[in-house]
Every structure is written in structure tokens, then in C-alpha cells.
């Protein structure tokens, strides 16, 4: 049920103008309509969707929101680098797998599903031999994804920097982009104290004294980083959600404002 709801949400998103006055009729082909809701007219709505009877009753212009039976392109960008292979009880990548399974599972016959990698696009499940690189993968997504495609990007976004902002904004202007931010496995607090040796999943190591002050500082920094990522993605036109280590599905549904049934 959830997968259907997710697809509906994607289609519903297509019908709504992203920005004031920027909406345009869909170019997607479909052979049916499914009524979703009646709502107040927003400048930019297709005038052909105005429900004149409802307008007469309400006194204001009313638009019929419908789902078109269109073919979707569901693309996923998964950070499978070593930093996503850490976790308290299981790797974050396992949770990412659950989210992607739901994402692909929402496809219907006729929809295209694909996975974007650095300089390659493969079918879901097919291996990507190239090491993950955020910038190259985003560039590939921008180059290959058709306009209107739905892109799900899952990463811890540690590699994200300001130089990627234009790229992300560019993708958001072409596609329905959703970013799942892998929540820090130690979001609820570093469970260690004393001298702790930190090994970087990808590189580096450090030996630190972790006390109460350090744990508080860490918790604050993790929350601040999450907030900053949400703010950044929102400002660039991306939908965001959190990928929890223990549940890869909930965060994706939350990102679309859906409840898991």
C-alpha cells in the first residue's frame, strides 16, 4: 500500500507548480485521470483543470487535481562508500537498501527504474564497479535523467559542499528530487567515554578523550549539521528526509508526508 501511495505522491507533486506562477501543463502522456482533490486555483494552474461547477458553488476559482496515468522515471543515487557502511547495529547502507526497495517498488508497469552511479547508469541490482563520487554521480544524473524524472539520493552527505549547490539546484529544476540524509548512528549520543580511538570509515584516525562535555558538543554538532543539510536542500528545491539506521522506509515516507500503513 505504501508503494502505491508513494507513487501517487510523486504524481501529485508533478501536478503542482513548484514556484508561484511557474507551473505548466504536463508533457507526459497518459490514458486516464484519477481525481485526487479539489482545491483553490493557484496562478499557473492549467485553466483546463478549473472545475466551473465547483467554482460557481464556492465563489472562487477551483482547480481539479487529478493524477494522470503517466510513465515515471524513478532513479536512485546511492552513496555506497565506506562511510555508509558504518552503524551501531547494522550498516546505514542496509537501511538505504530498504528505502531504495520501496522507491523502486512504487514503480508500475511502464515506469523506468534505474540507478545512477559515477559516470554510469545501471538497472537496479546491477553492480557498479566504480567507486562512489558524489560530484561525478550528480553530474551523471543531470546528464542522463529526463526532465520530470524522480530522483532519490541517499547519502550521509559528508562530501557535500557549496560547489555542489548549483548542480543540486539544476537537478531540482529538472527533476523531482528527494534527498535522504543518513542520520548519524550516534545521533542519540556517543555511548563511549574515556579515551576512544576513532577510525575513519574511509580514512584517518584519532584518539580522543570523550567526556560529558564532548558528548554534548557532539550531539549539538550532529543536530546542527542535520538542520543545515535540511535547510540547504530545501533552499535548492529538494525534498528531504532522514534515513534512520534501524528503518530505511520511514524516512522516505516522511519525506513525502506519508504515513506507513
Amino acid at each position, binding site marked *: 500500500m505504501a508503494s502505491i501511495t508513494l507513487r501517487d505522491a510523486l504524481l501529485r507533486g508533478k501536478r503542482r507548480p513548484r514556484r508561484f506562477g511557474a507551473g505548466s501543463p504536463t508533457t507526459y502522456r497518459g490514458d486516464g485521470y484519477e481525481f485526487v482533490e479539489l482545491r483553490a486555483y493557484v496562478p499557473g494552474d492549467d485553466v483546463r483543470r478549473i472545475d466551473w461547477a465547483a467554482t460557481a458553488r464556492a465563489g472562487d476559482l477551483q482547480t481539479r487535481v487529478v493524477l494522470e496515468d503517466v510513465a515515471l522515471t524513478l532513479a536512485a543515487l546511492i552513496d555506497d562508500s565506506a*562511510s*555508509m557502511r*558504518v552503524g551501531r547495529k547494522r550498516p546505514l547502507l542496509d537501511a538505504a537498501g530498504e528505502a531504495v526497495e520501496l522507491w523502486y517498488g512504487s514503480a508500475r508497469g511502464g515506469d523506468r527504474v534505474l540507478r545512477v552511479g559515477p559516470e554510469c547508469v545501471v538497472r537496479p541490482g546491477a553492480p557498479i564497479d566504480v567507486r562512489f563520487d558524489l560530484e561525478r554521480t550528480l553530474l551523471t544524473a543531470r546528464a542522463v535523467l529526463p526532465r520530470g524524472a524522480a530522483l532519490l539520493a541517499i547519502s*550521509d552527505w*559528508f562530501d557535500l559542499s557549496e560547489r555542489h549547490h548549483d548542480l543540486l539546484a539544476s537537478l531540482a529544476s529538472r527533476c523531482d528530487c528527494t534527498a535522504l540524509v543518513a542520520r*548519524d548512528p*550516534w545521533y542519540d549520543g*556517543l555511548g*563511549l*567515554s*574515556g*579515551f*576512544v*580511538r*576513532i*577510525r*575513519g*570509515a*574511509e*580514512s*584517518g*584516525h*584519532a*584518539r*580522543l*578523550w*570523550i*567526556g560529558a*562535555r*564532548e*558528548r554534548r*558538543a*557532539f550531539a*549539538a*554538532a*550532529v543536530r546542527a*549539521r542535520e538542520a543545515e543539510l535540511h535547510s540547504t536542500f530545501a533552499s535548492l528545491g529538494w525534498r528531504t528526509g532522514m534515513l534512520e539506521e534501524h528503518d530505511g522506509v520511514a524516512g522516505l515516507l516522511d519525506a513525502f508526508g506519508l504515513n506507513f500503513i
Partner: protein
Amino acid sequence: MSFDHPVYLIPAVFLAIALCALLLAAQRRMTARDLVYSNVAFLTDAVAPRAWIGRAFNASWIVALALGALAVAGPHVRMPVPARDGSVFICIDTSGSMQSTDVSPTRASAAKNAAAAFIDASPSGTRIGIIAFSSGAAVIAPLSADRTAVKAALDDVPNPNGATAIGDALQLAAQNLPASGHRVVILITDGVNNAGADPQEMASYLGTRHIPIYTIGIGTPNGDIIGGEQSTIDEDALRSYADASGGAYARAENASQLRSALARLGGVTMLQNREVAMSLPFAFSAGGLLLLAMITGFATGRVP
């Protein structure tokens, strides 16, 4: 600092270096407290770790090993230590001017009270004697470690009368002090030497025997008129006696100053420089520090 076995320092230093290397190697190995994290740079920036804690641990190990290495070599340090077998003669001026009341109740009484306080404060085992002097000098209490007896003898100090024979008092002290050991003369006077032996010569003589004289001039700057004469202090002379013997001079204008001057002297006169073996303190310090570092290390994840 000197060492009984300085050659032992060489293997000890090598041993300490080897232990340090072992510790560092042990610190590098993975432990249960290891944490694999996505981004080390983010974490280290986020927690802003207190690096001094780690440095303190390292320093404690290094200091402990250094102390241990030093302890093996049998270090000796020359330092002031309390002289439990010291001998002190308190020479109290009983000349006529000591009946002056510019120091309450009288200079003589204040001197006796301060001497009693000094006796109480002196370390047990210190032998104390009392000499009273005016026109001549007499031993009121011979050197004794029995403080009660010596304090009781203060009652036998005669009432103020007569001239001031400082030299005689110093001579008597020199005759009654033992030939060796830690020996001190404390001279409490308010006047100018006007009888008996030359005190400057006696002071020099005592200096050659390594017996310091601590002189205390008692009385107010204006002094008092006793028997139609102004009683003053010859501070230069008193300072000179002290300097010649390796002692020190202090001025007391009231009973309180006199007590505190004698209390200070109690700390100084009862100390003597001695070679002290430091092996045990070093070894215990090293052991204690190592134990502390190991316990806290195990508790907090700092190896071993």
C-alpha cells in the same frame, strides 16, 4: 643532586625508553573502545576534544618512568631538614634597661614569654638551654631536651639589673654548646654592649665554629628612659654579630613582633642542610604515579 650509582642511569633510561615504546605500541592496537565513524574530521571538529587530558596521561607515564629511572641510580639531594638533635642557647638580656615598659608588660617579661613560645614550638629532641646576662652571664638552664624543665627555668631568670655583657653571654654559650651537631645561639637584647668580652670577637669565633647567632633587638625606636638614661638599641652592632656568625638579625618593637620573630627563627634555626637519600621517595612517587596512571588508564581506555 648527586647519585650513588650514576652508571645505573644508563640501563634505566634505556628501560624507560623501551617501556615508552611498548606503551605507544599498545596504544595503537585496537581496543574495545574503538569507534568506526563515517568522518573523523567532522567528529574531531564537533567534540572539540580536550587534548590536555591525553597529554596529562602521557606526561604522567613519562614522569613516572623518569622518577623510576632516577630512583634506581640512588639520588641524593642536599636540602634543609629539621634538626631533631639540634642545640640552642637562648641568651636573654637582663640588664637594667630590660625593665622598660615600652614593650608590654616589660621588655624582660616579653622576652621570657617569647622564649617560652619558642621552646614550645621547637621540634622534640632539640636541646635548649638558657643564659641570662647583664653585668655578667650565667647559665640558667643547661642544654636539655626536657622542654618542661627548660620552660620552668625561665622563672629563674633574674630581674633586670646591671650592665650589658653580650660578649660574656656569647662566650658562655660557646663553652656550653657541644663540639659538633646543629648548634644555634639566639640573642635577645635591648642594649649596647658595655661590659665583659668583646661580642664582635665572640661572634666571629662562633662563626668559625659554624654556630650562627640570631640576634633580636627588642624595644621601640625611642626606647625608654631608665635610670636617667635613654635605653636604645645598637642595631648595627647586633646585625654585625649576626652577619659575622652566619645568622640573622630581627627587630621587635612589641611583644607580638618578638613572638613572631622567635617563631620564624624556630623554623630557620631548627633546619639544617643535609644530604638526603631520595631513592625511596622517587621510587614511591614513580610507583604511585604508575599505579594511578594504570588504574585511570584501565578505567578510561588508555592502555595498558
